[in-house]
């Protein structure tokens, strides 16, 4: 089949271009840059998000510098020309920009795309036995819509110099984000920021449509829904969440844009005198933004978690040499998290002045969402119970996922209890909580997944010792940085303050903040080990065969790396993906594609 038809017929039947062992006529650009191959797109997403991880991490280190050494000359960046006017220190304006962009980069350009974009793209066709996504061209566009977003975020960050970048937080609450005079960063930078969020949303939506269609329509023969690996369940449910939640954010973003440049007043009430400007007109309601924003952004928390839960389930089974404990409860609890995820957004607004009766309802629903999370945790422990464990790098990272997710889940209960939340809301306790979930759980899951599926991506192994060193350093640095945040929160230190030590009751927390910053630096440096290992192994790692981990999934049935079209022939699936140590066979794994003839029943001959 020629490239032209491949391109124009995005939704062509997937049977007729099956198993092309390579396209000699494809040029470099079409093969590696504007590729429609899901594996190349997945790897593009992965490398992009790894680089963005370093950017977001650098921003976080700058935030940590200011909190540990307030108003002191900034290393490295302090010498830059743009900081000369500030005396080489972090100004309060720049500090607000830093934490705004740290969250923005980490959420929109790292966590969401690394899960759905990188691993979703790479794994979905391979794990369900398809030769590519349902809509390859749409898939390519979903990657290339990331770059306008990155460019617009970049423009918004630099357009105002070091004082007037977007500084309304990643939550961008109006009126701060809706009126240009409200803050130095609420001018054009905020407009670019909103446009960038829209581009990210378009990219995610393209991916979401593609994943749903692919998973529903393109499973290999025998791959029933309840034979799908947990990774696919995670990606599937995530895609559904995105499809329902994202339009709300996009619409709300446009409403703020209209407020900013179209003269509407969706979020701006009348009579505000912002920064000595003329009083505002109109009768908008700032709480409306919070409802719309969190209606997306709470499900987004699960978008940032469920795929990692799925991948960790796969990895734990593969290295425990044991079937998943309670496959169906795992699927049902994941669905329950997704369903409940839509009715808990109000817990971000317990102190916002919303009707207290609503607060009570959201408190109960939020408590209830801890239940499926608990069920999943118990099942992971059950999976490891009685296993024959292999402590490889992916395994260590996955165990850390489970362990840290327990911390993140339990600290969530404190915030879900409204009276307690009245004290710890917007304090470092919440910062600790979501870093334990997003870094401690998701990112450790991603680190595990990188090491686990790297052989399939490049046909080479990553260095296990470097991987373990990276894990140990990251784990120590992570807990040093974030566990202490719980204590800061209980001591009453609010988040987002450029200089919390302004307040006498927080002065004694400075040494602890210094300790946290050193831990964060350790964690930052450890990531160079990951990058080094990743890029070195990509070219010079030891070669591996199809199934280096002796795992069961369909992806291990394809060559490493799989050619365009993935499989030698259409795989036929005979069982679920977790039949490790099955008594049906002598080896301790049983691939989904391996046919075992039924044994003659005694007495029937």
């Amino acid at each position, binding site marked *: 089949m020629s490239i032209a038809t491949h391109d124009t017929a995005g939704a062509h039947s997937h049977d007729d271009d099956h198993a092309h062992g390579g396209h000699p006529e494809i040029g470099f650009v079409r093969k590696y840059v504007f590729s429609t191959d899901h594996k190349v797109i997945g790897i593009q997403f992965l490398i992009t998000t790894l680089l963005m991880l370093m950017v977001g991490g650098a921003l976080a280190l700058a935030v940590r510098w200011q909190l540990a050494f307030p108003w002191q000359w900034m290393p490295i960046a302090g010498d830059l020309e743009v900081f000369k006017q500030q005396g080489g220190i972090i100004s*309060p304006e720049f500090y*607000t920009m830093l934490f705004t962009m740290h969250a923005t980069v980490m959420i929109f350009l790292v966590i969401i795309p690394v899960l759905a974009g990188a691993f979703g793209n790479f794994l979905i066709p391979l794990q369900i036995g398809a030769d590519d996504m349902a809509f390859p061209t749409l898939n390519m566009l979903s990657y290339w819509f990331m770059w306008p977003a990155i460019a617009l975020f970049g423009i918004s960050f630099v357009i105002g110099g070091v*004082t007037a970048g977007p500084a309304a937080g990643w939550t961008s*609450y*109006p009126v701060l984000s809706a009126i240009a005079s*409200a*803050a*130095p960063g609420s001018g054009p930078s905020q407009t670019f920021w909103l446009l960038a969020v829209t581009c990210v949303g378009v990219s995610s939506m393209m991916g979401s449509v593609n994943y749903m269609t692919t998973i529903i329509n393109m499973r290999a023969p025998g791959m029933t829904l309840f034979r799908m690996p947990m990774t696919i369940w995670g990606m599937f449910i995530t895609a559904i969440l995105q499809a329902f939640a994202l339009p709300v954010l996009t619409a709300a973003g446009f409403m703020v844009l209209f407020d900013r440049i179209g003269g509407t007043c969706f979020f701006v009430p*009348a009579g*505000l005198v912002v*920064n000595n400007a003329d009083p505002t007109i109109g009768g908008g309601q*700032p*709480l409306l933004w919070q409802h719309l924003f969190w209606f997306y952004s709470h499900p987004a928390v699960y978008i940032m978690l469920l795929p990692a839960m799925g991948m960790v389930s796969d990895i734990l089974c593969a290295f*425990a*040499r*044991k*079937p*998943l*404990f*309670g*496959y169906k409860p795992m699927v049902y609890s994941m669905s329950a998290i997704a369903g409940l995820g839509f009715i808990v957004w109000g817990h971000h607004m317990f*102190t916002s002045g919303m009707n*207290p009766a609503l607060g*009570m309802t959201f408190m*109960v629903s939020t*408590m*209830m969402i801890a*239940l499926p999370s608990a069920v999943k945790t*118990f099942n992971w*422990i*059950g999976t*490891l*119970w*009685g*296993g*024959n*464990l292999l402590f490889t790098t992916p395994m260590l990272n996955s*165990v850390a996922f489970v362990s840290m997710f*327990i*911390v993140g889940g339990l600290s969530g*209960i404190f915030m*879900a*209890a409204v*009276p*307690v939340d009245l*004290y*710890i809301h*917007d304090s470092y306790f919440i910062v600790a909580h979501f870093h334990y979930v997003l870094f401690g759980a998701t990112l450790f899951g991603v680190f595990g997944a990188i090491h686990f599926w790297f052989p399939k991506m490049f046909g080479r192994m990553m260095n296990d010792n470097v991987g373990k060193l990276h894990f140990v350093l990251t784990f120590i640095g992570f807990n040093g940085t974030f566990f202490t945040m719980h204590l*800061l929160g*209980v*001591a*009453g230190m*609010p988040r987002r303050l*450029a200089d919390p030590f*302004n*307040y006498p009751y927080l002065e004694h*927390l400075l040494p*602890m903040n210094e300790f946290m910053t050193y831990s964060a630096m350790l964690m930052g440096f450890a990531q160079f080990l990951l990058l080094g290992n990743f890029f070195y192994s990509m070219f010079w790692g030891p070669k591996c065969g199809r199934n280096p981990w002796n795992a069961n999934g369909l992806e291990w049935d394809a060559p490493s790396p799989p050619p365009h079209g993935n499989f030698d022939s259409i795989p036929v699936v005979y069982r679920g993906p977790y039949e490790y*140590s099955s008594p049906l066979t002598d080896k*301790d794994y049983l691939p989904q594609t391996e046919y075992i003839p039924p044994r003659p029943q005694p007495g029937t001959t």
Partner: protein
Amino acid sequence: MFWPLLAIAVCVVAPANGWWFPGIAPWELGQQIDDLFNLLLIISTVVFIGTQIALGYVLWKGTSVKTGGAWFSHGSHNLEVIWTILPAIILLFISLYQMDVLARIRVMSQFPEQARDAPVAEVSARQFEWRIRYPAPGKKLMPQPQPTDLYTVNDLHVPVGKPVMIRLRSEDVQHSFGLPELRLMQDAVPGLVIPVWFQSNTTGKYDIVCKELCGWGHYKMQGELTVELEEEYDAYLQALQAKMNDDGFSAEANNAVAQSNEE
């Protein structure tokens, strides 16, 4: 595993180093919030230690299995039922147990009557200060500013030992009125007037902290709450009124001007 040990160590070390609540809450509901926090801390510490020990145990057991392979098991229906229902009961208990304190703090019909009927002041958040409007002594606070009202900035005085209510509003962007020492926080939302009540049974000065990002100066939006005896509070308002009514040409000032003219 070292996690449970670390958790216990933290619980012992943290309060000793001041890494804990800023003082004892000076009112009943604040103390109840602390109690609820401690209850959650006990429940979650038990769960934390239990699950981490279980995790450590299965990891340790799993490494020693070399012969015979892993246990071929797809799960246990009974265990699933147990570990679904048990947490469900605990979680439901927690959420219902918290309702009462929540209602007393937030639901206006549950506010103490004397506080609800007579707000002591209107606090208007503004980049980056707290503007406070008191009614003149003997008058009630009206929704609209009155000519006799008294104004201060960043300096809220309330009487000790009785419930007080303020009306919270914002003049520009969103702020949040935080009293960490009283374990209380309420956002000041543009366009809304939100009643907030609290009480302090000890006199003293407390920090008013802005807890919602309101711009570059958010970190320095600091106010002070002074809790004082009823007489001191009345005297404070009297002095404030005298200062407001002082046009610079009071008796002493006139004398001073006259003297300087004679010279």
